[in-house]
């Protein structure tokens, strides 16, 4: 895959606002037909990196190469973008939004899906968020972009609609479109071919889900006194999470856990299991957090 030219490349991109470094020496490629997930907590620098990739802001250091050149008017015509806020004109109707975007990209007005066709004469501000997302996707795809950039595309969308939007993303990738998607839903991260994890402005890990998790393990604590166990482990400053009634701790030796539980007079079965992507992210984020 790396022999092919990337659709877009961030080359050691750094973006500073005064003394604050929002993105720190991040490199990233998106190739045709692949879905690259950009993961990270709020404030990790994902959206700033996206803005640099789109040419909305320019890197303080490093460079962005889109379709072999610096982002400009011509490169913008080759990408589709769904921003977090959707970028729709709420006081225009669905049909007017589509008509304007099609004219801007000099593309044919797309045929609307039945759900959107049913509300095409309604103001965008009056239709539901799910339909608004669908409309934003339709607009982003209308001019057949080679690269699709999606910033938190399914935020606030109910699960069924989310699945439908992901079907659209996969269809596009199957047709050779490169997709760069930011998300903090771990289930969505699993739909990506490749992931880049950002924390505090840096790209701290990259690869497939399996690559990123690597040998990191978690411990699952099985006890009827799960609430007390959770409280004791949390009080001991360990990275404890609760999954239903199962207490889990990422990247923590089992004997440390056993010792804390023993000290709290809690009997439990502690067993080592593979860490989840979310747990790995927590571990990485803790490691990257400045002291």
């Amino acid at each position, binding site marked *: 895959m790396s022999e092919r030219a990337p659709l877009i*490349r961030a*080359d*050691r991109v750094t973006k500073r606002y005064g003394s604050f470094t929002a993105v720190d020496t991040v*490199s990233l490629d998106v190739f045709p037909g692949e879905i690259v997930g950009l993961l990270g907590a709020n404030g990790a620098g994902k959206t700033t990196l996206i803005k640099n990739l*789109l*040419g*909305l*802001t*320019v*890197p303080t250091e*490093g*460079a*962005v*190469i889109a379709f072999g*050149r*610096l*982002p*400009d*008017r*011509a490169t*913008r*015509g080759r*990408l589709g*973008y769904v*921003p*977090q*806020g*959707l*970028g*729709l*004109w*709420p006081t225009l109707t669905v049909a007017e939004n589509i008509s304007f*975007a099609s004219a*801007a*990209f*000099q593309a044919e007005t797309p045929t609307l899906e039945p759900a959107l066709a049913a509300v095409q004469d309604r103001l965008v501000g009056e239709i539901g968020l799910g339909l608004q997302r669908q409309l934003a996707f339709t607009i982003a795809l209308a001019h057949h972009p080679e690269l699709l950039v999606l910033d938190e595309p399914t935020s606030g969308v109910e699960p069924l609609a989310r699945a439908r939007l992901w079907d659209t993303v996969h269809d596009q990738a199957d047709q050779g479109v490169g997709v760069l998607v930011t998300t903090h839903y771990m289930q969505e991260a699993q739909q990506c071919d490749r992931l880049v994890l950002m924390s505090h402005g840096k790209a701290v890990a990259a690869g497939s889900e399996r690559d990123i998790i690597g040998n990191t393990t978690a411990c699952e604590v099985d006890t009827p006194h799960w609430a007390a166990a959770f409280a004791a482990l949390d009080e001991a400053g360990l990275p404890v999470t609760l999954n239903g009634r199962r207490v889990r701790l990422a990247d923590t030796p089992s004997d440390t856990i056993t010792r804390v539980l023993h000290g709290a007079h809690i009997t439990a079965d502690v067993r080592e299991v593979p860490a989840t992507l979310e747990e790995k992210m927590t571990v990485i984020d803790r490691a990257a957090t400045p002291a």
Partner: protein
Amino acid sequence: MWAMILKEFLELRRDRRTMAMIIALPLLLLVVFGYAANFTVDDVPTRVYGPNAQAVAGKLHTPFDVKKVDPAGTEEQARDVLRSQDAGAVVVAPSSGPATVFIDGSNLFSAQSVTAASKASGGVLQPEVLFNPELKTSWTMVPALVGMIMAFIGTIITAIGLVRERQAGTLEQLAVMPFKATDVIVGKIAPYFVLAAFDMVLVTVLGCLLFGVPFAGSFLVLALGAALFLFCVLGIGVLISSVSQNQGQAMQMALLTLMPQMLLSGMIFPLSAMAAGVRWIGYLFPLTYFNMVSNGVMLRDAPISSLALPLGLLAGMAVLVFSFAVLRFRRDLAPTAPKAARDAVAAGGTR
């Protein structure tokens, strides 16, 4: 309650624009009403024409400020001088009998001052008011209102319209569309330009119909002045939008630019009656020059040559403000990569 008061002060302290308004507005009002709010004109630039000019000129006192004495000057020349606003009054003194004072009625307060002085001369001076014989306030106010309405619409609607795009995130969407920055800015402000121009025509026509205000001059000259003025105010609107995060801030900033224009442009208080320092602030505003054009065209049939200065200054301001606004907008919409990055890409120096 104390916590609430403290919180409010903390918020206010960090809201620089509101703080600026709290500090700037009282200062502005103090300066304006202290130094500018004066309806009494003490010095009216005056010329004295006619065979008896020297003798009459020697007897003139406040508010006549004799600038030129020309015994060969005629009544016809006097009218032309007033039409071009080279003087506020021209006294034509024949070899015998009372002198006639021709007064520029388009300059209301100067005219009132000179008329009163002439009437108090005991028959030595006979006043004749030109361009606004009955000295109606509405006749001088309507041409000024034309400019003020364009300033309000041009500045506020443009600023709010652009900030609304930014707030809704649609400005970002426009920035990723394959538009040129000039396409976006022209496309965005053209409707406001048309609407403000429509309002100008509407106010002018209604002003003439409802208040009987004459339209003595060329509509084309007024249209030229209006177009230049609109570029100024639309540019100011764009600049305001570039430093405002929300519509409230844009409104505040717009009012901060509009209030001084209204008060110091000569629309309400005569420029000639203001203290010099304050008058010069007035000379910085485009509305001051548009008022000169609209007043000159509508009331005096002023020829374009006599309006060359205000038109030229409006053109200069339009180019300056609008270019700066476009550059600022372009920087926000399509920032240029630093030279180092451009060179690196050109040299194939990326990874």
